[in-house]
């Protein structure tokens, strides 16, 4: 008799919890892959395609499904790879040396030479170029991510990349240099 009661109680409990879990799975269903979104939030959103994927989101999806390495994003740099390693619990690997860009730059259209072909406007992944057919185009500097995708389509090569000059507003205090740090730097950034 006791055994029967115990079985019934446990079975009822299992049913109840199962129903609750089943309801929660439907009610609080998460649309999309949350890991992809987290990875995408770390990526710099330059949409440059230097990783070999057509934009940051596709690269994030590839990382999430384990098809891509985490150190393919030059604009994100080693810091970005480090953050991805932390998020995903993967081993950190630095970027290939030549892939790292020293400073951020923006595209600038040489206005005398622009013929108004709109090809760069179509190439810009973040809608940072304004203009119309046979009218001069211009890059909105504050919106440009420096992805360089507009350089190639331009038939008259009127787009240059220009480094953003440092101003007192964007200047930051440098890191305190200590002999120990310099030694570590010389040994190479093994860890992140």
């Amino acid at each position, binding site marked *: 008799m006791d055994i029967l009661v115990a079985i019934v109680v446990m079975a009822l409990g299992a049913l109840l919890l199962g129903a609750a879990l089943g309801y929660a799975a439907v009610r609080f269903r998460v649309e999309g892959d949350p890991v992809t979104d987290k990875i*995408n939030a770390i990526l710099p959103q330059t*949409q440059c395609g230097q990783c070999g994927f057509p934009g940051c989101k596709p690269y994030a999806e590839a990382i999430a499904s384990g098809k891509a390495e985490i150190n393919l994003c030059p604009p994100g740099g080693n810091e970005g790879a480090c953050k991805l390693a932390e998020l995903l619990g993967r081993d950190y690997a630095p970027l290939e040396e030549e892939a790292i860009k020293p400073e951020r730059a923006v595209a600038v259209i040489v206005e005398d030479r622009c013929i108004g072909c709109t090809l760069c406007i179509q190439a810009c992944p*973040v*809608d940072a170029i304004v203009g119309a057919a046979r009218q001069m185009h211009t890059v909105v500097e504050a*919106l440009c991510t420096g992805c360089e995708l507009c350089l190639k389509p331009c038939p008259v090569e009127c787009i240059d990349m220009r480094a953003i000059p*440092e101003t*007192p507003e964007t200047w*930051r*205090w440098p890191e*305190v240099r200590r002999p120990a740090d310099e030694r570590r730097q010389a040994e190479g950034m093994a860890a992140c």
Partner: protein
Amino acid sequence: MLRPLFSFPGGIKPDSHKDDSSRTPIAPAPLPERLTLPLRQSAGVMPLPTVRVGDRVKKGQVIASADKWVSASLHAPTSGKVADIGKYPMAHPSGLPALAIVIESDGLDEWRERQPLDWQRLAPQAVRQYLQQSGVVGLGGALFPSHVKLDTETRIEELIINGAECEPYITCDDRLMRERAAEIVSGVALLRDFTGARQTLIAIENNKPEAIRAMRGAISEHGENFAVVTLPTRYPAGSLRQLVYTLTGKRAPSNVLPTAMGVQCFNVATAHSIWRAIVLGEPVVRRVVTVSGNVRAPGNWDAPIGMSMTALLELSGTFPDTDGLIAGGPMMGLPLPLATGAPLTKDSNCLIARSPRLFPPRPPESPCIRCTACAQVCPQGLQPFELYWWSRARNFEKAADYALAECIECGCCAYVCPASIPLVHYFRFAKGELAAAAREQKMADSARFRFEFRQFRIEREKAEKAEKLARAAAAQAAKQKSAAAVEAPAASGEPAPMASLKSHDQPCAPNPEPR
């Protein structure tokens, strides 16, 4: 009158060195031939130049006009010609040049028309706009435009006038209170009327007995009910949040202004410049600057803004072993080379000539042993040794968790550190990195939104095109069919030609809204 004072935690008592420069009266500095006026002389938005190279300007004429509400105008400190508008060195830790207007003096020092403001007949907003046009900003060092401080929703209970001047060497506010107390009190009365404060407190550290006496005398002469509160001398008693706590017991975290708690604070020099602007009709074109340290005749100069720092230092006679200068006080000031091209700005309260004897070089940094001396002196109640640890390890999020944003960079921790760790430098570095990361994140978020919207738009355009083609094809087909029907009217049971147009609704994905 006795008031209970609250005692903020920590703080230090360094050698004041104030007697060096506080004994002699304020002397007017001779007019230099060239004045360099960096446009950025207020917190907020940089004003826009209103003059051109070659223009003749009169003293007090607006040369750059306030751009947004949190912005203040800039004026010619003397009459002359605009020689250049371009990038010139300024007193900034980066050493980067900034946009400035250069004026060549004609030696006449001719004022533009000056008129007192009949403020009682004007709306408060008009008075605030007048102060904005007069370039009145916080002369204590923060350069926050005063008219913005007067534009508050909250009711101001306590008006605090800051004459604490807690940093060593600096005596410009001390001398100003001793010599121009009546004018300051008139300025304070104006501020009291503008804010409608119930109580007005003038806070002065107890190492300035002459200033306290002068201010009390001026107050009783004016018949005002302002209270002069004597503060115990302790650095940083004059820092905004420490002062507000000492006088009112109200604590404001870094993201809340004391204004929101019904307290408004102005520096004595700011009160004086408000009096000048309203009663004399003179904008801010001069200020009192302490020159001290390794000089023959330390003292205070009433100098035009835009004058070269080096030139002003030379007026006091630097000793030959001078190896640099400090713009500001020794705790929070900015070390500059002696031959800096930087000019005086509205926040230049002090110039100190450095020498190896007065300021011996800092011994090399040794490891932190967590003695917590820094935590005991931190006036913000932080744990600088923890902040140091996380900043050094570049773990900035963790540093932010330890309330890095609350750090006021007063330098007490670095002053007492037995390992001579430049703690404030670490904190400035970490703050800069955090701010840059926040900026980058904002840019990335905006780029992601635009990229996703662009993808959506391309999809929509494609769908629209496909639909248009389909519709054209259907119309074509219907036409052919009806033509066939005319030829063979016997055929029946045809669907209506319009039926093929039923997919008229637009393919409309939810519009991603910008945040």
